[in-house]
């Protein structure tokens, strides 16, 4: 039967096929971040909790005469919540592909895996920015309500606090992203992230109390402490910079590099 079959070309002409544009990959990854229940409700939860928290702050501001709130306070309240939720977002962006094994399809359609991972990270950053903007907008509405109720709102808003908020949230999201890439498992990445964020600083602090020589040393491995000056962009001294970079390399850099290496070379099952 092969003798009579028309001779079809044995090569594929790829000269007219454009690679998938990076913006399209970002668009697809963005869609994936909300088109499942887990993804949708995580994003919704972030919005709902931020609104809820800022509403409570508004009520406190209206009922307590000595609350003395300004616009910046609303953003700080939001930051407290999103510092917990955005890392989970960063984790789910990565592990979502592994838990449900969709990575097989994703990497079949785009074998240049680094582009997919890059698109996911951009989505994480965009959603962090959107979260910050939602916090500011909701904060502005609440502050206006507060002003109407108490007869005069304080619109003091430090841009350095907003930028610091963005930076800290981005770092938190990136740390979640890195741990997820390293572990490729949602629960494990979440547990390890919160252990690193809340347990490790405590242990380092306790160790510093008992060991004098350890205190200076611990400043270079305590990533949470080293980030504190970033909150209002008061990172001035060289040692503060060094502490941020060294601790960041340990807790963010190493997991990120190892995780990316794992994703880019691993067998996708």
């Amino acid at each position, binding site marked *: 039967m092969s003798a009579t079959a028309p001779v*079809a070309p*044995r090569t594929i002409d790829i000269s007219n*096929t454009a690679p998938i544009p990076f913006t399209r990959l970002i668009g697809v990854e963005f869609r994936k971040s909300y088109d499942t229940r887990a993804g949708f409700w995580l994003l919704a939860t972030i919005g709902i909790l931020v609104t809820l928290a800022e509403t409570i702050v508004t009520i406190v501001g209206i009922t307590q005469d000595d609350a003395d709130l300004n616009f910046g306070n609303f953003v700080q309240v939001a930051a407290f919540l999103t510092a917990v939720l955005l890392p989970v977002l960063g984790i789910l962006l990565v592990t979502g592909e592994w838990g449900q*094994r969709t990575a097989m399809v994703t990497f079949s359609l785009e*074998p240049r895996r680094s582009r997919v991972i890059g698109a996911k990270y951009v989505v994480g950053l965009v959603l962090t920015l959107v979260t910050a903007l939602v916090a500011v907008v909701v904060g502005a509405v609440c502050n206006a309500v507060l002003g109407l109720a108490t007869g005069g709102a304080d619109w003091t808003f430090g841009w350095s606090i907003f930028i610091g908020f963005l930076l800290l949230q981005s770092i938190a999201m990136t740390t979640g992203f890195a741990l997820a890439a390293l572990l490729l498992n949602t629960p494990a990445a979440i547990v390890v992230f919160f252990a690193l964020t809340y347990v490790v600083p405590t242990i380092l602090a306790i160790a510093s109390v008992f060991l004098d020589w350890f205190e200076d040393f611990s400043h270079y491995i305590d990533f949470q402490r080293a980030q504190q000056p970033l909150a209002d962009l008061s990172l001035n001294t060289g040692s503060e910079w060094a502490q941020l970079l060294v601790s960041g390399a340990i807790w963010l850099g190493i997991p990120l590099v190892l995780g990316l290496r794992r994703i880019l*070379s691993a067998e*996708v099952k």
Partner: protein
Amino acid sequence: MIKVEGLTRTYGAFTAVDDVSFECQPGRVTGFLGPNGAGKTTTMRIMVGLTPPSRGSVTIGGHRYADIPNPGRHVGVLLDASAQHGGRTGREILTLGARTMGLPMSRVDEMLELVSLTPAESKRRLRNYSLGMKQRLGIAHALLGDPSVLILDEPANGLDPAGIRWMRGLLKGYADRGGAVLLSSHLLHEVELIADEMILIGNGRIVAQGDKQTLLREEKPSSLVTSLDNGRLGEALTQAGFGVSRAGEGLRVECPPVEVGRVALQAGVVLVDLRTGSRGLEDLFLQLTADTQREQAPGAQPAPPTQPMQPVQNQGAAR
């Protein structure tokens, strides 16, 4: 279209794929047959870059898969119909694929229609799909980008008989329009009717390949005979140098029926029944992969002293 050369993949001491070479032609359906764990899936995963090979190479249309821009437009892949997010609807899964490949959304509806998933079904979440529906969706996903090569791993798994017939027609038509199809299966009858070419793999090695006629030609001739005096006929046949074994009421003889008739004539034994003992592809398949089977299929080897089938030596001819 697909060219596999010296492909080997080891996991520690275990060799999952052992020096596998074959080629899939455009306009033909190539069946990739082997028992579970023979290395079919690993080979296909290496083809699309999900598993790095230890040695060897695969090219599709002359390119490494990783070098094909927007590969979904050229190569349709279905490796595991269940490897999709259970919380997404069938339509959403196809939409993500179409968007990634840069296709119009009308393509999603076309493909849903092609695989007979109704609009209502397409809005259900994947976790509520039967395996057959997942397979249909997976085939739709593979065909989205109008590719010229299809790589399908066990696509008939979970399809009902009508579904298997439908898939057969679909792939046949696809190949007739010039497409190259590689589909794997552990069930011979699923691929026997559609595959123009078959590659049999066991324990990571190719044990035979060729079209159906070529494969059957390699089978050693055998006859089934029943006579009024099986004992004497058996002796005579053994003396004539043919392998004889008991098979039901009669004997199985490792020679063509004409030789049995000749010996019977000389021995003066009256024959009651004489016919060819060719056992078809199913037995050939089981024999070729016999040492790689997890368990021996009862009744698969009717007579003990059958010689193992000689592997097909036409790898060069298949090119």
